[in-house]
């Protein structure tokens, strides 16, 4: 294989392991440790994408998270991942990537016509164009914008990868393993602090990997390797690479995304693809470094124009040349390091330095190496369309306004350095108000807001000596606050050649008669002229300029563009940058996958699934399950080809005719205990509780303070000071919180304890005319006759030597009992009931039949107690005590709740006795009335009455009491149905309640 741009003797990739991958369908080779970017550059590929707006050719601009250009789409194991930065993604065998935002191909892109129409795409183009007429929006504008928008395509398939969440606590979190991160981690770890050191790249060391420095008589790389090795061996330290701390949240919680398997062909067994860390740190040291700033000149987005630090890293880390005829364009010493590295690898660079007469050790070294340097020189414009072919350069006057001696120079890359911008994002997210530092022309953090400190170049320290000293000191200082070990390590000596002075120059003026596009934001194609236009049109606030021009709004969040944008605004407005201010930094610092954010909480894992102890039996007996809150409950038990309708009818009929059994384990159960338990219940429920005898159950309704029904259920007095409360399945958790609220905060003087016992009891409701006969066989030693166990009675009994509790309560309107045993015996109980019940024609019934039975009896449930109804509306006013006070009572006398035509529950039967009424239908007087048709109320629940063999519904309608007997209409605009109905009593079956007392 030939890699024309690969160097032999330099780089950290593994030359012993060749890796093949495809880019836009073509196969390439690289080495283990390459990124897509380094491998493509090694193969001489510089055209990888098209820009967002003008579809201009795009190459590589950086070498890491700041990359604005090389956004690709990745295919891995038939899964698609858009928005991959080629500068971060490591290659693996079989990797497939392709360009985005271009059609039909990156080489020939139709959308590039926008580039020639760019006079029609100025700032705010979308806001100005896609406005009128409104009718154009849906069919013309939106499809157009959708077609034009976005990088890559998200997969529509289910993501089969596993993502995990992890919670971690530490004394000190350090974000970035450059010189300041390593030094502070080392100092803190040696002082006994529990440290997490996070590095977003695969290799530790940050700038030490590429700079020519000496720490403690070792090269930067050697020193960082030594420190990392020692940190990894310490039990109080967690070191993580490929891990980006992207968000700083309240109370010192930071979130980190760890890419565990993204660089591998396949996610390893027992490992997730990515892991999201929630880290609660006592202290945070932000050592996130800085990002090189571009210089602005004509066509500065041409492929081949890139950051000088990136060019250096491609050489030193990957052994890759970004060009063989490099032009270095710099306003500070950083460009010289790159030039020297080129020279050392046999390539002759030309340096253009905007400064007039700079001097430092590194400039002398460059001169001594014979590198050609032109001072007071700039690049005016890059030439070449898909790759830099040459550059127009010029001498610039001392006042930086006039260009002279313009000449064309052949080159194949332009490495730019406009000094450095500290990455203050995390500090800013923490709430730290940054300040502008004139010396470095950039913002640095000011006063700590939470427990965070920023160190190194992120804090504007650009000499290694300052950085190392500050980091060792801070690492010791913050760790000592926590450990008080007073264990200080000695600080190594540092040798560095470059100075940290820079020229305040950042934007090359246009030569007379030229109108080159000079770009600020490379991903969103925001040029100098766009900002100028926005300001001419009256936008002043930097936040508005940002949104109008989209400067810094792309996936790279303006890491390379923000400061130059601010410079431009302040230049035009004749302000200084701090007056302009900067836009807000918000998490995430780099894009985070939705998968990582969601973690394991996908599908059935998004909440716990609760199953009753009888679940396996239901499954074996063809139960079709339904989600009831977090519970899975049998909806019906399918026999043969039965439909839901047929099965539920059969099951409900069997309850009315013989006997049925229903799993009611899911009902909320709360133990209420204590000498004041009766008094407490008396205040919680609307009805009277003080005189309930031991061994008796009572139905109760509880309200919220605003008078709305909160829940209902039966509560049984087990012994003198012990009550067993049941709640609906859905409200169980809320009711417990409600009770705790009153006991702990409102009436702490009541001596009562409450605890949830839902999980402790398995419950079976046995209902139907044969239920007593069945009970007599199940409990031969217990008197379950009407006298021995009357309606609303309670008895403890033994079920084949298992302790059981029998409650004679009914939700179906039939003679019914509820049997509870400890959960572990649930299945035993169930099987015994089925076995013994055979001779009584027992059948299990599900929630659908359960609903049918309760609806035709007129029993209210969740669909009636929907957070809008008071007791009167649900015909529960008989349970509201006039004599005593209780929670919510005072609200019931509010005028809205006492109006004579207040809504009330009624029954609804279709006149044709065959058409089922959709739930949610409106009840109206005149179906042809002018819209909006005044509604009397709505249908809350519908069923097929097995008693009368016709449809029956419950509805809550205005003045319901006086509507009985009226002929009205049920309308469902949703299903386009209008059904003539008659209003009847909600107690459709056995209105006198004879059966339950039988």
């Amino acid at each position, binding site marked *: 294989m030939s890699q024309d741009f690969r160097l032999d003797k330099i780089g950290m990739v593994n030359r012993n392991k060749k890796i093949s991958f495809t880019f836009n369908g073509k196969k390439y080779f690289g080495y283990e440790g390459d990124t897509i970017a380094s491998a493509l550059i090694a193969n001489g590929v510089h055209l990888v994408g098209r820009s967002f707006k003008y579809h201009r050719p795009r190459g590589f601009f950086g070498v890491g998270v700041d990359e604005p250009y090389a956004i690709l789409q990745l295919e891995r194991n038939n899964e698609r991942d858009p928005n991959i930065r080629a500068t971060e993604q490591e290659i693996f065998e079989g990797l497939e990537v392709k360009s985005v935002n271009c059609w039909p191909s990156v080489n020939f892109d139709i959308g590039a016509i926008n580039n020639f129409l760019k006079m029609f795409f100025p700032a705010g183009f979308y806001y100005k164009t896609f406005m009128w007429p409104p009718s154009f929006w849906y069919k013309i504008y939106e499809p157009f914008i959708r077609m034009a928008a976005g990088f890559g395509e998200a997969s529509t398939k289910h993501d089969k990868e596993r993502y995990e969440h992890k919670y971690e606590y530490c004394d000190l979190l350090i974000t970035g393993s450059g010189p300041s991160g390593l030094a502070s981690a080392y100092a803190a770890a040696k002082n006994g602090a529990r440290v997490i050191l996070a590095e977003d790249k695969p290799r530790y060391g940050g700038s030490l990997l590429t700079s020519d420095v000496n720490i403690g008589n070792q090269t930067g790389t050697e020193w960082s390797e030594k420190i990392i090795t020692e940190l990894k061996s310490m039990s109080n330290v967690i070191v993580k690479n490929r891990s980006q701390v992207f968000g700083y949240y309240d109370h010192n*919680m930071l979130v980190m995304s760890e890419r565990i398997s993204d660089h591998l062909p396949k996610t390893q067994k027992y490992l997730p693809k990515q892991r999201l860390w929630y880290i609660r740190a006592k202290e945070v040291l932000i050592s996130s470094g800085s990002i090189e700033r571009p210089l602005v000149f004509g066509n500065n987005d041409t492929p081949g124009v890139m950051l000088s630090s990136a060019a250096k890293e491609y050489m030193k880390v990957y052994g890759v040349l970004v060009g063989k005829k490099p032009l270095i364009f710099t306003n500070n010493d950083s460009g010289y390091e790159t030039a020297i590295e080129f020279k050392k690898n046999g390539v002759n660079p030309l340096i253009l330095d905007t400064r007039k007469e700079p001097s430092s050790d590194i400039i002398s070294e460059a001169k001594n190496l014979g590198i050609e340097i032109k001072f007071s020189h700039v690049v005016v414009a890059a030439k070449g369309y898909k790759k830099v072919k040459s550059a127009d350069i010029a001498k610039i006057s001392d006042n930086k306004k006039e260009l002279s001696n313009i000449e064309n120079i052949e080159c194949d890359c332009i490495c730019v350095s406009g000094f450095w911008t500290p990455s203050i994002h995390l500090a800013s997210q923490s709430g730290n108000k940054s300040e502008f530092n004139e010396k470095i022309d950039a913002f640095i953090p000011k006063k700590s807001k939470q427990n965070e400190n920023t160190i190194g170049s992120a804090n504007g320290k650009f000499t290694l000596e300052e950085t190392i000293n500050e980091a060792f000191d801070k690492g010791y200082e913050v760790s000592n606050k926590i450990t008080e070990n007073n264990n200080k390590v000695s600080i190594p000596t540092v040798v560095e050649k470059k100075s940290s002075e820079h020229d305040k120059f950042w934007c090359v003026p246009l030569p007379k008669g030229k109108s080159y596009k000079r770009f600020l934001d490379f991903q969103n194609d925001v040029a100098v002229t766009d900002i100028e236009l926005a300001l001419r049109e009256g936008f002043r606030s930097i936040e508005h300029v940002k949104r109008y021009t989209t400067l810094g709004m792309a996936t790279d969040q303006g890491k390379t563009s923000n400061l130059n944008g601010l410079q431009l605004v302040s230049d035009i407005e004749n302000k200084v940058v701090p007056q302009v201010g900067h836009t807000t930094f918000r998490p995430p610092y780099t894009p985070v996958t939705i998968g990582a954010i969601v973690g394991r909480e996908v599908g059935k894992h998004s909440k716990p699934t609760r199953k009753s102890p009888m679940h396996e039996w239901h499954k074996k007996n063809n139960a079709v399950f339904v989600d009831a809150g977090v519970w899975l409950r049998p909806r019906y038990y399918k026999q043969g080809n039965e439909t839901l309708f047929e099965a539920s009818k059969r099951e409900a009929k069997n309850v009315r005719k013989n006997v049925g059994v229903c799993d009611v384990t899911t009902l909320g159960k709360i133990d209420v205990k204590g000498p004041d338990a009766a008094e407490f219940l008396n205040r919680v429920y609307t009805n009277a509780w003080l005189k309930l005898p031991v061994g008796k159950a009572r139905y109760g309704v509880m309200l919220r303070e605003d008078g709305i029904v909160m829940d209902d259920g039966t509560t049984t007095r087990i012994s003198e000071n012990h009550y067993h409360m049941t709640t609906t399945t859905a409200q169980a958790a809320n009711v417990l*919180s409600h009770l705790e609220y009153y006991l702990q905060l409102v009436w702490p003087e009541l001596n009562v304890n409450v605890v949830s016992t839902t999980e402790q009891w398995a419950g079976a409701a046995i209902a139907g005319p044969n239920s007593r006969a069945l009970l007599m066989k199940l409990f031969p030693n217990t008197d379950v006759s009407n006298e021995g166990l009357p309606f609303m009675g309670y008895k403890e009994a033994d079920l084949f030597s298992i302790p059981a509790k029998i409650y004679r309560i009914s939700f179906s309107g039939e003679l019914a009992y509820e049997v509870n045993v400890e959960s572990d015996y649930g299945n035993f109980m169930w099987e015994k009931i089925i076995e013994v019940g055979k001779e009584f024609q027992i059948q299990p019934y599900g929630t659908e039949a359960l609903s049918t039975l309760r609806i035709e009896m007129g029993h209210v449930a969740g669909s009636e107690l929907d957070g809008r109804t008071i007791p009167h509306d649900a015909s529960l006013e008989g349970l509201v005590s006039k004599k005593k006070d209780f929670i919510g009572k005072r609200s019931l006398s509010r005028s809205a709740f006492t109006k004579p035509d207040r809504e009330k529950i009624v029954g609804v039967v279709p006149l044709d006795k065959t058409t089922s009424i959709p739930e949610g239908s409106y009840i109206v007087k005149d179906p042809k009335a002018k819209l909006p048709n005044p509604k009397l109320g709505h249908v809350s629940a519908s069923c097929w009455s097995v008693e009368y063999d016709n449809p029956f519904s419950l509805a809550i309608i205005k003045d319901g009491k006086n509507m009985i007997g009226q002929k009205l209409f049920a309308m469902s605009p949703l299903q386009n149905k209008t059904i003539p109905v008659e209003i009847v009593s909600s107690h459709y079956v056995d209105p006198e309640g004879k059966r339950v007392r039988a």
Partner: protein
Amino acid sequence: MLYIFCPHCGSRSQNEFAYGGDATVKRPDLNNEISDQEWNNFVYLRKSPRGKHLELWHHISGCRQWIKVERDTSTHEIFKTYKADELIE
């Protein structure tokens, strides 16, 4: 995510707690004559201060105790937390 000090359990993440509103609201005594206006104030009217606020949190996935938390509503700073029976006038 807030980090709340439960006086019974220690510092725990916010996702163990449920918010319970203004902790200074006092329920009118039972069996007391009370005007519509007063009752209305109790049931519905809440201040929404910017700054220090004494509020209720329920340690729902922990000890299940209701606690009082003094928190700055704009900065989320938590000054102090109290047990349910503390700070009662």
